[in-house]
């Protein structure tokens, strides 16, 4: 049987990886509809890999990053992208997307910090992807 992630758990974990905290109900509902469309056309191997990561409660942000940078697991990246699009339509999520105050110093620091985090996440993500391949 085709192995697929539980859509509610998937929505919760992807939201947490992107924004932290609890996913709003309306966003979870909309995400389920989008994920359904994505899953319908996805390859079985990718579906199984995503399901495996979710079952393991793995760090999805790390796995997505490693998948994206190595050209694998595009399904997970598209799921993250779908969640990002949907979240951007909510008024209380605007702060994640748009800055209304200017600061070059803050901007550079934010980028530097995220650069460091990315390096750590990438190492973890590559390890996760290896374990998915073995699993």
């Amino acid at each position, binding site marked *: 049987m085709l192995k697929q992630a539980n859509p509610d758990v998937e929505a919760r974990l992807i939201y947490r*990886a992107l924004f932290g905290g609890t996913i709003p109900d*309306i966003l979870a509902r909309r995400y389920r509809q989008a994920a359904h469309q994505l899953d319908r056309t996805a390859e079985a191997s990718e579906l199984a890999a995503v399901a495996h990561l979710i079952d393991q409660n793995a760090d999805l942000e790390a796995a*997505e990053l490693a998948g994206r940078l190595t050209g694998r697991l595009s399904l997970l990246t*598209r799921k993250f992208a779908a969640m990002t699009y949907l979240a951007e339509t909510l*008024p209380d999520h605007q702060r994640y997307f748009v*800055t209304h105050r200017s600061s070059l110093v803050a901007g550079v620091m934010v*980028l530097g910090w995220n650069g460091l985090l990315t390096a750590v996440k990438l190492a973890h993500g590559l390890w996760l992807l290896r374990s998915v391949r073995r699993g």
Partner: protein
Amino acid sequence: MAEFIIVGSGAAGVAAALALVHRGIRPMLLDAGFVNAAAVPRVHGNLYDYRRRRDSFDLHIGTELGGLRAALDTEQSVAKLNAPNMAFVTRNAGQLAPLEQTRFHAVQSFAAGGLGNAWGAGLYRWVEEDLDSFPVSLEQLDPYFDLLTREIGISGQDDDLSPFFGSAAGLLPPLNLSYNARLAFDRYLRTRDTLRRSGINMGYPRVGVLSVPYDGRPACDYSNLEFWQSQPYIYTPAITLQKLVSRDQIDYQPGVLVESWRETNDGLTLLAADVETGESVQFTGGTLLLAAGAINTARIALQSRRDLSTRLPLLENPILQIPLIAPHSVGRRLDTQAFGLVQLNLVWQSAGHGMTLQGSLIELTAPMRAEFFGRFPLSARGNLAAMRVLLPAMMMMQLYYPGSAQPPAELSLSPNGRLRIVAPPHDMDRASLAPLLKALRMLGLWSHAALIQQPPTGHAIHYAGTLPMRTQPGAYQCYPDGRLHGTRRVFVADSASFPTLPAKNMSFGMMANAMRIATAAAIS
């Protein structure tokens, strides 16, 4: 029986209709004619204010999730066409005009007003150099450019780009520049002599976007809503169509899919189908003007001869997309009061390429920020951070090459009724852009050859040359007056008749040429 029948209500069709109406003729205009039926409430004010107050799911995504196409599909799509309010532009195109494509990604429209409903309205006059291979002179087109400039309301100004964009007569003042574009242009003005010596010129675009109220329409409000709903300050062919219909100057017949024509002794018969029911319908007329877009005009020509063997050329402007960053704007607040499309143009007379290339410098304030998810080599949260602190510092240059920079695609009719389009493999050389990247750095805009993207062929959405004009045409070619070889009363009014495609948004040239051809058809 109509004296003149035009097929298609896009930019070419309405321009042809306008020319006939100016001569006192009331043409029949046949068209599939979809209109926007999405139940999306109109947004007034600024996009970003609206999003802070209201859930924008209906505006951005829609119940059919069209706005998520970039995430849901593996194929690259044109972002603006995914907006729920723009879905009608490409509605049912795959069913009405099925294609089999290899290395080509055509965008087709069956909307009232055609693809122009979604365009950026970059409307550039042709100059002598653009007409090198046309059996047509600039003097023949200039009166129509003048007339269209008045009809449309085009903003721009007389500047360093006038030698490439033609006369600035009748232009409205240019639009306000965004913060980043203003800084780049100020730097251009300071380094102008050096840049011009290396063949680089910069200036305001010519856009059918009102900088001041004009002809009963309001001026641009810098709301960033250009991607999300039709804005009355952006000209679209649908505006002229509506005007002609409301004045009863044309006999507009939407809901019709024309399949072929048959010439008779005293005129011609058009064989068509009702778009909703599929039932056959016929129209008789004296003269036919084809303006269904270069691809569908060619389809109708091939279907009329039931020709499954001929391969027609299909031209398209190759494009490259160059992401640019203005380092001094990193961390700056987003310029939410901007015009969200083309800010400036750059023309590069490239000695290395031996050709003139045109770049459009585009603001990134109108699309959703999520459009850029995954474009930064950072983690998911890093991408969100980059959307906040890097995107306000970014612009994009769309660089157009002339159609001749790559071999044409081939278009033919398959036995199953599909149109087959095969483009040759073609990789644009990014390394040769080093002088351009250096010039852009002088303007405070940084990039790197490795970041330059080549969208799939077909994404410029400038299709042309399927039935080219020649002084001595052969089969599937036109006379200089637009008449199709081997016919007595069939004229090609759209870009199908272009022998070449300059490195320039083509629609304004096509519209002037459609007026010239319609006038020639009326006289003949």
